[in-house]
């Protein structure tokens, strides 16, 4: 049985992990998100594409409650995460996030970065945390750098450590906020390679990205956003080969020579 079959079977059997409905967010009078709705099922790799300023990152930050939504709801296994009684830190520990600017803790070594969450948040023992940190650092090819401080690493290396740090919490779903946008072209490849491997292993991911090739080849589902709404959504095949909306066609035309 190949990966796709497993994923599609899971989809029919299980409920969605995340259910975003009618999500709204504005900064002052500027409305950034208007009525966003979609679902994420286990094993989904959802790519969110669209022009800068279309609200992609804001939407992702709302899912992790780094921004507080103004309207609509985000259900995590049926539970409204914006509810007052919601244990937000516990929720965030289950939903990992990888940032454009890495946000590695600059006062810690690579290894400590990957251990601190496990020890302080997940209350694991030091030995257990270290073993798991090494395992995930090994996975992203950064285990040789355990003693380095973030400032001593290249952008691509930092981002791979950031992915390992998120993975070490064993999240149910991992959010990527333009993970390669701050990287030199030659470093983009090493990060995408890691992400591709994770997708193939069946990790549930939402990826805000400008890497069209990744969105087309790796994701199971693509959302195209424009002006704070989901303009079009579907499988990569539908979006990249038979886009229906004029805005989608126009946006993708810019990437034509790259795909």
């Amino acid at each position, binding site marked *: 049985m190949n990966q796709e079959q497993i994923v599609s079977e899971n989809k029919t059997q299980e409920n969605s992990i995340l259910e975003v409905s009618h999500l709204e967010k504005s900064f002052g009078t500027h409305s950034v998100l208007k009525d966003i709705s979609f679902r994420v099922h286990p094993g989904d790799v959802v790519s969110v594409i669209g022009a800068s300023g279309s609200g992609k990152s804001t939407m992702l930050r709302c899912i*992790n409650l*780094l921004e*507080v939504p103004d309207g609509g709801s985000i259900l995590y296994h049926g539970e409204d995460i914006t509810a*007052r009684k919601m244990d937000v*830190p*516990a*929720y*965030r*520990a*289950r939903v*990992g*996030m990888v*940032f454009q*600017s*890495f*946000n*590695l*803790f*600059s*006062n*810690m*070594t690579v290894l400590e970065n990957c251990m*601190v*969450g496990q020890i*302080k*948040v*997940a209350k694991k023992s030091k030995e257990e945390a270290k*073993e798991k940190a*090494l*395992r995930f650092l*090994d996975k992203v090819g950064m*285990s*040789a*750098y*355990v*003693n*380095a*401080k973030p400032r*001593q690493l290249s952008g691509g290396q930092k981002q791979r450590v*950031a992915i390992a*740090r*998120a993975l070490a*919490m064993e999240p149910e779903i991992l959010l990527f906020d333009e993970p390669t946008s701050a990287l030199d072209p030659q470093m983009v490849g090493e990060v995408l390679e890691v992400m591709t491997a994770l997708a193939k292993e069946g990790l549930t991911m939402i990826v805000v990205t400008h890497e069209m090739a990744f969105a087309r080849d790796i994701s199971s589902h693509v959302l195209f956003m424009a002006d704070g709404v989901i303009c079009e959504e579907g499988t990569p095949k539908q979006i990249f080969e038979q886009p229906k909306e004029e805005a989608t066609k126009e946006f993708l035309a810019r990437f034509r020579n790259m795909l």
Partner: protein
Amino acid sequence: MISNMSFIERIFYILQKYGTSYLKGAGTTLVIALVSTFIGCIIGFLSGIIQTIPVDKKRDPLIKRVLLGIVNVILRIYIEVFRGTPMIVQAVFIYYGLAQVCNVQLGMWQAAFLVVSINTGAYMAESVRGGIISVDPGQMEGAKAIGMTHVQAMVNVILPQAFRNILPQIGNNLIINIKDTSVLSVISVVDLFFVHKSVSGALYTYFESATIVMAIYLTMTLITSRLLRLWEKKMDGGDNYELVDVMDIGSQLGKKESR
């Protein structure tokens, strides 16, 4: 007789006669400066931490917001009053105020520690607040994204970085305090400057005694600033790191798996 001596001879004469008094005074000055800077730092950190507690209008209960508001107003008043008035006046105000209004007669040490700590605390409060604010907001987001609470993020990520950022200012305050304890002679604290006043008053050797006292103050501050630089260097760690043998990690993991 002293009036027939040359400048150098007078200095030696004074040192011979009152050398231990000067040393005792210098010791008192140093102890007051060190202890008060330390207590001032604690006041400053507490105040800076309280002032940077985020308030979530939707989620936080009213009582927390009101309490925090009141505490913040009190802190602002404290900071403005003690930064905005001379320490020499504060010393007189507190020492005689407590005696007259509250009928509390402070001892020399109590008075010195109280006045200098409160004064230093007001300055440190602003330094710490600035130090916390100046840490890249991405660090807090990174910490929250792995499920840390505000307190955990502060303790593990933000404060260590803020502390490093404000270490030069802590050093500054220590050096200022070594010098400024001299104003405590107005409430009869027997520090270095008090010794100078007593000696020069007895022998009418203002210039000679001032020369000695200048030299002692300068020695203390130079040594202090040298030690602080060493501490800063130590905190920053080296610029190099050692690559760890990947095979070694592999075998470590292997061992743990087979257990």
